């Protein structure tokens, strides 16, 4: 017997807002988190804009002890701990006592690459034959699971504490992994989420691949244009999102506020076969992933009334729409509402799925469908498939009942999760 799983807490550290309140407002208002980055100009990047959360020392001091902050140079861990701690607190959970952990709670927090700036520090020391000067935190800040390790210790979680990594699918995949563990009865609560570091050493490889926009350095807020005819590439971003997943029984027993229910979902890969490759999706795999998510959730494709896509603002957006349309068997005016949040805060890479899941679920809570940013000129290949009214240009009062969220990543990997508005 599978158990029902709900979301009882959320936290976010996003380029356009830190904390649920500020973030929800930014999403509803279409506020951008994309800014000119002098450091990228100095390093002669083609794309000199990016989206990163604006941290302050005061903010960090609320989440980390002075000792933890000493030599802390892993932005992904900073973002993850802020988002994760907030989600825990938002769920009304207490930090475990000093003597024993909370055996029923775990952490599953993904990362793409972690502590890159710290690793760079270490590399300089090592190359200068100064290995002994690395200090004690070089390992914990650069291991992929560093963010889960920090959160697990801060909160005192005694169930599974781990990290998943599947490129830009990471955050959405993590939601499903946490969901599975709770549905199977192996945990009562899993803090799921994902993070991505900021900085030139993370983003340079994408600039080298020439998939970032280069002509918007003077107009950063206009640069990320999902579904638009003038889309010019994705804007690199960073941050973290976190969701506290909980068994329905546990949530009800605690009298916790429930944001939404997770009905199910699916993950798969195109195996880099057919039209799939390391960097391009196999369309059949994308469609199978969506269809299986619908099947696992016990709904019909006609039940979906809103989609939050992956839609990165590259030339592949039209293909994604075609895949949604084919999988759902819906097009034209029959197509559900669809939005992409990358117009607001770019593509936060391994953090994208989790930040976007938080935003997608906030739409239930705020009874608002968040509008798209920068797609006044819908791509003609897209308007051929779906009616333009399915693409809200501004936020509007609308409460979806069932929402599909998908993320796709390098390695030809896919994840799709189905959220349902929770009603007693």
């Amino acid at each position: 017997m599978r158990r029902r799983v709900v979301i009882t807490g959320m936290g976010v550290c996003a380029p356009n807002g830190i904390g649920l309140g500020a973030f929800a407002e930014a999403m509803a208002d279409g506020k951008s988190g994309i800014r000119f980055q002098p450091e990228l100009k100095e390093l002669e990047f083609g794309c000199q804009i990016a989206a990163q959360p604006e941290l302050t020392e005061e903010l960090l001091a609320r989440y980390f002890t002075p000792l933890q902050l000493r030599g802390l140079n892993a932005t992904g861990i900073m973002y993850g701990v802020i988002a994760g701690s907030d989600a825990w607190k938002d769920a009304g959970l207490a930090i475990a006592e000093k003597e024993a952990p909370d055996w029923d709670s775990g952490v599953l927090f993904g990362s793409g690459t972690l502590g890159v700036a710290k690793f760079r520090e270490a590399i300089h020391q090592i190359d200068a034959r100064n290995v002994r000067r690395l200090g004690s935190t070089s390992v914990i800040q650069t291991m992929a699971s560093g963010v889960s390790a920090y959160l697990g210790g801060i909160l005192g979680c005694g169930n599974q504490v781990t990290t998943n990594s599947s490129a830009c699918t990471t955050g959405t995949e993590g939601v499903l992994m946490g969901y599975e563990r709770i549905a199977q009865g192996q945990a009562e609560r899993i803090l799921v989420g994902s993070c991505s570091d900021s900085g030139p050493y993370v983003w340079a490889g994408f600039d080298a691949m020439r998939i970032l926009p280069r002509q918007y350095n003077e107009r950063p807020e206009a640069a990320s244009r999902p579904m638009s005819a003038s889309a010019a590439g994705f804007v690199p971003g960073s941050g973290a999102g976190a969701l506290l997943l909980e068994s329905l029984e546990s949530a009800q027993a605690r009298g916790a506020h429930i944001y939404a229910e997770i009905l199910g979902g699916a993950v798969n890969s195109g195996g880099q076969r057919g039209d799939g490759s390391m960097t391009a999706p196999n369309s059949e795999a994308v469609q199978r992933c969506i269809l299986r998510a619908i099947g696992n959730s016990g709904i019909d494709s006609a039940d979906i009334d809103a989609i939050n896509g992956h839609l990165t603002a590259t030339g592949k957006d039209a293909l994604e729409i075609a895949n949604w349309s084919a999988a759902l068997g819906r097009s034209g005016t029959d197509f559900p509402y669809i939005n992409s949040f990358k117009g607001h805060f770019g593509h936060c890479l391994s953090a994208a799925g989790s930040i976007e899941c938080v935003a997608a679920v906030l739409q239930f809570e705020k009874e608002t469908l968040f509008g798209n940013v920068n797609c006044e000129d819908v791509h003609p290949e897209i308007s051929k498939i779906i009616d333009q009214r399915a693409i809200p240009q501004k936020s509007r009062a609308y409460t979806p009942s069932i929402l599909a969220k998908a993320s796709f990543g390098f390695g030809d990997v896919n994840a799709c999760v189905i959220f349902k508005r929770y009603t007693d």
Partner: protein
Amino acid sequence: MEEETKYNKLKDIIKVYLPEDVSVDAIGLESNFISELNINSANLVDIVLDVEDEFDIMLENADMDKMQTVKDALGIIDAKLEAK
């Protein structure tokens, strides 16, 4: 350098690494870093680096192994400063 100055400088270094429930007043000459002050053993590495920076000396692996208490640390600092 006066002994007291050295001791105070060392205390300033150590206090950063104390767990939240151990107060600075708990630091005494005979205090064992790990068993009495509850300092995470991984942080001893950082204390050594801070000591090196503060006193402009360099500790060897053998010195680190001998450094169990505050008094041990002061002894090692003295020896290194004398040898300079």
